[in-house]
C-alpha cells in the first residue's frame, strides 16, 4: 500500500513538473501582454519533432537537446514577431483567436513538412537510453523519465527564479507584468522583455516536449493541444500571470489528476473487511472505476469552479480576473 502511494506521488510530481514547465511560459506571456498563447503547446510539438529528427540522424542526446531548444526558441521568437507584435494592445479575444491561428499554422506546417519528408503522421519517439528504463528502490519502481522530469523541472524552475529575482532583465520582466505602461515610462524596453518571455517560455516548453514525448512514446502534429489546455488550467488554478502561481498550479493539477485516477474504483480495490460494507457501496457508487476515463472532464469542472469562485487563483492578484 505504501509503495503504491509513493509510486503515485512520483507520478504526480512528474506530471506536475511538466505542467509547471508549460504553465510558466503561458503565465509569463499572459502577465505582460494579457495574451493566452494557445500556440504554446505547439512549441512543445515542434521541440518533439526537432528531437526526433536530430536523434534520428544519429546525434547523441547532448547535441540533440541544444539543437531542439535553440530551434524551439527561434520558432517562439518568430511567432511573437510575426503574429503577436502587430496586434499588441488589441482586444483580449482578438489575441486569443490569433494564437489559435498560429497553432493551426504550426500544426499543419509540421504535417506538411513530415509528409514532404516522406514520414508518417504518427511517429514513434526513439527514447534515448539516458531517459528510458526504470529506477527501482527496494520495492518501489518508477520509470526513469518520471524522475528526470521532476528533477529537470525543479532545476529549470530554480534557474528561472534566480533569473527573475537577480538579473536586471528578469526584474524588468516582472515590472512589465506589474504595469506595462509604467515600466515603459521608466525606460524598460518592452519589445526586449516580451521577446525574453517568449524565448524562456519556448525553452521550457522544449524541455517539457522532450520529456512528454518520451513518456508518451509517440508524437504527432496535434500533440500540443491537450498539454496546453492542462497548462492553462494549471496557470488559472495558481493565479494567472503569476510565475510561482503557475508552478504551484502545475503541481496541484498533477496531484489532482493522479488522485482522480487513483480514487476511481477504490471501492473495489480496498481489501476485504477494511471498510464497512456501507462505505464500500457508497464508494462504488460515487467513485466507480469508469471515473478514470472522465479524468479530463473532472479537471475542467475544477477549472470552471476555480474561475467562478476564485478567478484570481491561489496566488494571483485580484485585478487579473476580468469578471462582472
Amino acid at each position: 500500500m505504501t509503495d503504491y502511494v509513493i509510486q503515485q506521488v512520483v507520478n504526480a510530481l512528474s506530471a506536475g513538473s511538466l505542467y509547471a514547465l508549460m504553465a510558466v511560459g503561458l503565465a509569463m506571456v499572459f502577465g505582460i501582454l494579457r495574451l493566452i498563447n494557445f500556440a504554446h503547446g505547439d512549441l512543445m510539438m515542434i521541440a518533439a519533432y526537432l528531437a526526433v529528427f536530430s536523434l534520428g540522424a544519429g546525434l547523441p542526446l547532448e547535441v540533440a537537446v541544444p539543437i531542439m531548444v535553440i530551434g524551439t526558441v527561434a520558432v517562439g521568437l518568430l511567432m511573437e514577431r510575426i503574429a503577436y507584435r502587430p496586434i499588441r494592445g488589441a482586444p483580449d479575444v482578438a489575441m486569443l483567436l490569433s494564437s489559435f491561428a498560429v497553432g493551426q499554422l504550426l500544426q499543419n506546417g509540421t504535417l506538411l513538412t513530415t509528409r514532404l519528408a516522406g514520414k508518417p503522421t504518427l511517429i514513434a519517439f526513439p527514447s534515448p537510453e539516458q531517459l528510458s528504463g526504470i529506477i527501482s528502490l527496494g520495492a518501489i519502481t518508477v520509470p526513469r523519465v518520471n524522475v528526470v522530469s521532476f528533477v529537470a523541472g525543479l532545476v529549470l524552475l530554480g534557474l528561472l527564479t534566480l533569473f527573475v529575482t537577480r538579473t536586471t532583465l528578469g526584474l524588468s520582466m516582472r515590472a512589465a507584468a506589474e504595469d506595462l505602461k509604467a515600466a515603459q515610462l521608466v525606460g524598460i524596453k518592452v519589445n526586449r522583455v516580451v521577446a525574453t518571455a517568449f524565448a524562456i517560455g519556448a525553452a521550457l516548453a522544449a524541455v517539457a516536449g522532450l520529456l512528454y514525448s518520451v513518456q508518451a512514446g509517440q508524437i504527432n502534429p496535434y500533440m500540443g493541444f491537450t498539454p496546453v489546455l492542462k497548462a492553462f488550467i494549471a496557470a488559472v488554478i495558481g493565479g494567472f500571470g503569476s510565475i510561482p502561481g503557475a508552478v504551484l498550479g502545475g503541481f496541484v493539477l498533477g496531484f489532482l489528476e493522479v488522485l482522480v485516477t487513483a480514487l476511481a474504483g477504490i471501492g473495489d480495490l480496498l481489501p476485504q473487511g477494511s471498510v464497512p460494507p456501507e462505505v464500500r457501496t457508497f464508494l462504488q457508487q460515487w467513485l466507480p472505476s469508469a471515473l478514470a476515463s472522465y479524468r479530463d472532464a473532472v479537471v475542467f469542472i475544477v477549472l470552471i469552479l476555480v474561475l467562478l469562485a476564485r478567478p484570481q487563483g491561489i496566488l494571483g492578484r485580484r485585478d487579473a480576473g476580468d469578471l462582472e
Partner: protein
Amino acid sequence: MTNRRRAAGPLLVIALSSIALAVLDASGQSFWQGLVINLGLFIILTVSLNLTSGFTGVFSLGQIGFMALGAYVAAILTLPLQEKAAYLPDLPSWIAGIHLDQLIGSIPAGFLVATVIAAALACVVAWLVGRVLMRLSGHFVAVATLGFLVIVRVVLFNADSFTRGSRTFSNVTPYTNLWWTAAWALLAVYVVWRIKRSPYGRDMFAQREDRVAAQAIGIRVMDPRLLAFVVGAFFSAVAGSLYAHFITSFSPTVFYFDLTFRVITMLVIGGMGSVSGSVLGAIFIVGLSEALRRVEDSTLLYGLSSIVLAVIFIVVITVRRDGLLGQREVPLDRLFDPAFWRRQGRPMDTAPERDQSP
C-alpha cells in the same frame, strides 16, 4: 418606406435561391448538392455563433459541443427499432422504444420532431451551463466554454451505451436534403436578424460595447447574454442534427477544435455582429476550402488548406479586425428603395437602422 417594399429585396433573394436550389435538386449533381448542404450547415453554425459571441462579445468556444449534442440526440431518436437494437443494445429501455422514423406522405416528420427535441435539449443544457458561465468575460469565458467542449467530448467518448464511444455511429437514415438545410438556414438567419433589430439585440450590443455604461443606464447584462447563448445552442444543435442525417456516420472526433476554429474563421472574416457578413464569410470559406482541398488532393500537400486559412485569419485579425462588414448588413431591405440608389458612394448602410416598424 412601406413594409412591402422593405420585404421585396430579401424575398427576391429567397426566390432566386429557391429557383437555384430547385435546378440543383433536379440536376442530380450530387457533388454540388453536397457542397451546398455543407454550406447551409456552416451558415447555420456561423450565424448562431455570431449571435452567441459576435453580438454579445462573450466569446464561446463551446458551440460545437451543442452541435455534437444535437447530432447524437437526433440520430439516436430517428434510428429505426431494429437498428437501435443491433447498434445500441445497452440503451435504457425508455429511449430504446422511441423511433422517430415516421413519414407523413414522403415527408420525414419524425426527423423534424427529433431535430426539435434535440435542439430543445441543447437549449436546456445551454441555459444551465450559461447561467454559470455567462458571468465570466473576455478570456475566461472563452476558456471555460472550451472546457465545456472538452467535457462534452469526454462524455461522448465514454457514454458507450448511447454513443458507441469512440466507434463510428453509423446507419443514420439520410434524411437531410437541400430543402431541409435551406429551410433551417433561412430560419436561423431570419431569427438572428430579428434578434439583432430587437430590443434584446440592442442590449446585447450595448453591453458588448461598454458593460459598465450599459449597466449604469439599467441594461441587464446577464439576460441578453443568456438569451444569445441559448438561441445559439438551439441552432447549433439543429446544424448537428442536419449534419448527422447528411453524413450518416460520424464519431466524436469530428466535434472538436478544428471545426470550432473553422466556424470562428467564417465569423471573423464576415464581421462579428453582421448576419449577412456571417453568410458571406461561410460562402467564402466553404468555397475556398473546397478549392484548396482539390489542390491538396492533386498535389498531395495535405495541411495546405489549413495553412492558407490560418494565414488569412492572421492577416484579417491584424489588418482588418472588423472583417468584411463589421456590424453592418448588406442592405437587402433597401434594394427597391429609390432614395437608397440616389445616394452615391454609400453602397452599405453605415448607420444602424433606426426604423423599428414591425
